[in-house]
């Protein structure tokens, strides 16, 4: 039997969808649920899951696409690095298109910068060994799911005595971002919580949503049945007046998470403030390598001579682009505004030159609005 197909069974999915329609009738207001994870957003689009839901149940896409929330400064740093003749960047593929002020890594590569797409950070080790005279910089982006992979890479680099590999660190943590999103004027009735991130961190970091904010959350997987099931479980909580964090992804996620991976993260990193595209700086939402691994961090003081020219370049860009950017990504993500309220939307912020996370991802709220509204515009003519 095909394991995947039972999670794509239209009959089962229809049954659950019918139950959701039934439950929504008990609510006297429209319901907004947020899927936090970018892969959930992708699945929801790919499988057309919105088609199955009642009109007054809206799904909004959260900040959970790691490349989409990577700030412009970071992309600019990477581009400046790639322009250095002695540097080779290694990166996940989807970061290639994310724009900074200096363009994107795709453009930089076309201009002669050395950028290699890797499928795992561990592949950077081979690049480093094959290019001893170059500095290899892995663009360490991603949430709790990818952080352990970066750690394994550094551990292995140390074991093999590879000295020419560094990371440009922009790892981020999901729970602090959820805390910011739930701060005020918050209009989300429930969270579809990420499956992969939860496999690492477990359920505990989400408990504050239920206990402090009064918002239910359900951890789930990425097949259509998983997603529909999680929506059903959230609706059930809302109708029954319960507020809990549930796990419906038992085949991957343990309630306590992956203890070994968590231990590794705590041993190697310490939390620091971090900048999110469109959301600004979020306290303790980033990670910094600590001793004795600090020297793997390209921007640590230990590497100050290596990055002197880079720092100068970055300061120059910041001076050059001092004008205010008008993106209201944060308000859109939290459901307080829609994309058409944003002064930059469809003007300075376009799919090919996005300002905020919601436009970077083709499945982001603004990108989807852009396509839909443009259509409507044509239809009205």
């Amino acid at each position, binding site marked *: 039997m095909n394991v995947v197909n039972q999670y794509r069974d239209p009959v089962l999915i229809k049954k659950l969808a019918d139950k959701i329609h039934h439950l929504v009738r008990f609510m006297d207001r429209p319901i907004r649920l947020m899927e936090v994870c970018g892969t959930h957003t992708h699945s929801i689009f790919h499988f057309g899951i919105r088609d199955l839901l009642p009109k007054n149940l809206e799904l909004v896409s959260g900040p959970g696409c790691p490349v*989409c929330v990577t700030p412009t400064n970071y992309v600019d740093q990477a581009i400046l690095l790639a322009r250095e003749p002695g540097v080779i960047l290694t990166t996940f593929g989807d970061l290639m298109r994310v724009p900074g002020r200096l363009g994107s890594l*795709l453009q930089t590569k076309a201009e002669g910068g050395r950028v290699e797409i890797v499928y795992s950070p561990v592949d950077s080790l081979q690049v480093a060994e094959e290019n001893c005279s170059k500095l290899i910089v892995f663009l360490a982006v991603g949430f709790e799911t990818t952080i352990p992979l970066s750690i394994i890479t550094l551990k292995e680099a140390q074991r093999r005595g590879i000295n020419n590999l560094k990371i440009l660190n922009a790892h981020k943590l999901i729970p602090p971002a959820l805390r910011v999103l739930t701060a005020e004027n918050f209009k989300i009735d429930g969270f579809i919580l990420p499956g992969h991130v939860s496999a690492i961190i477990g359920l505990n970091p989400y408990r504050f949503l239920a206990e402090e904010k009064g918002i239910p959350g359900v951890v789930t997987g990425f097949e259509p049945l998983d997603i529909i099931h999680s929506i059903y479980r959230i609706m059930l909580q809302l109708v029954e007046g319960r507020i809990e964090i549930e796990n419906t992804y038992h085949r991957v996620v343990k309630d306590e998470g992956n203890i070994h991976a968590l231990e590794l993260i705590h041993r190697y990193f310490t939390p620091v403030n971090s900048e999110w595209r469109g959301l600004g700086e979020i306290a303790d939402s980033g990670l910094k390598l600590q001793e004795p691994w600090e020297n793997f961090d390209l921007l640590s003081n230990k590497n100050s001579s290596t990055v002197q020219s880079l720092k100068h370049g970055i300061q120059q860009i910041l001076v050059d682009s001092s004008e205010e950017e008008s993106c209201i990504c944060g308000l859109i993500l939290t459901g307080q505004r829609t994309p058409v309220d944003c002064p930059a939307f469809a003007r300075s912020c376009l799919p090919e030159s996005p300002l905020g996370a919601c436009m970077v991802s083709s499945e982001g709220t603004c990108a989807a609005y852009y396509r839909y509204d443009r259509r409507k515009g044509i239809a009205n003519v």
Partner: protein
Amino acid sequence: MLPIIDMIGERGLLMSEKILLAHGSGGLLTRKLIEEIILQAFANSVLNKLTDAAAVSLPPGKVAVTTDSFVITPPIFPGGNIGELAIYGTVNDLAMVGARPVYLTSGLILEEGLEINLFKEIIESMAIAAKIAGVEIITGDTKVVEKGKGDQIFINTTGVGIIPEGRELSASKIQIGDKVILSGTMGDHGIAILACRKGLSLKTDVRSDSTPLHRLVEVMLEVEPQIRVMRDPTRGGVGTVLNELAEEAGVEIKIEVEQVPLLAQVQGMCDLLGLDPFYIANEGKLVAIVPKESADKITIAMSKLPEGKDAAIIGEIVARSIYPQVYVETEIKTTRILEMPMGNQLPRIC
């Protein structure tokens, strides 16, 4: 020049095991390369004359001309190589407009240092492919660029074909109710190439589908001369071709995912890397828009040939529209829009 002459050796053969700049200089080594490898493989009465231009007569009908350049890493891959691809790719472009391929040209750009054995293997594949496709390579050119200025070998082929009287394929002929046929499993070529590229240590038995389609096209047009239009979904995949057809004809196309032939291994690799098989390249597949009455008959005829054995009706033209689009009915009976891709697909981490 002495060292090179030394290398030529007594047998007057090709000396060095690698392509040298001198192989493209127009001198002795160029002639050797052409005579001993290229002519040997491509031999025919027109090419053998080695004149500056080939002079040929064409059978009656409208002349179709197409050109395509082939750059691919690695040059040899599971299920084919760049040489075979350069023949079939151009033959297929001719076939898509209903032309019967007759002649090809061959422009080779070699990078200094290319292994002669690899070059030979590629040229021999081109010769075999041309034979299978029933075309003659009637003229060509070979240049060598310095090491680092190419990627082993680039091939350009120009194809000439004849469109028989009364045959015309065009997106403008598309009618509401027409059916969409895909000639076989999609994405095999792109996934086979991806899997054997450096850095991706995934093992798969998927092979490139590199195949000539002219025979399949003839069979299809024999069953139904009123086939509206055909395209080969190479770069950009089936999704891109369908969007182009929707735009050109000003229609909405509906595709049923469950009818689309797809190897489980290709689906698996796509799921793993966050890619959509609708946008993965094919090198031996075609998409045809056909009148609904004859769709079944065409598909049955196609399935009798190896290159059409998995042919299936995958969708239909549902409406005329001022904003043309392609949408997909998913396996869970919902719909999603199949968009025109922005650029190359990139693997996702999120």
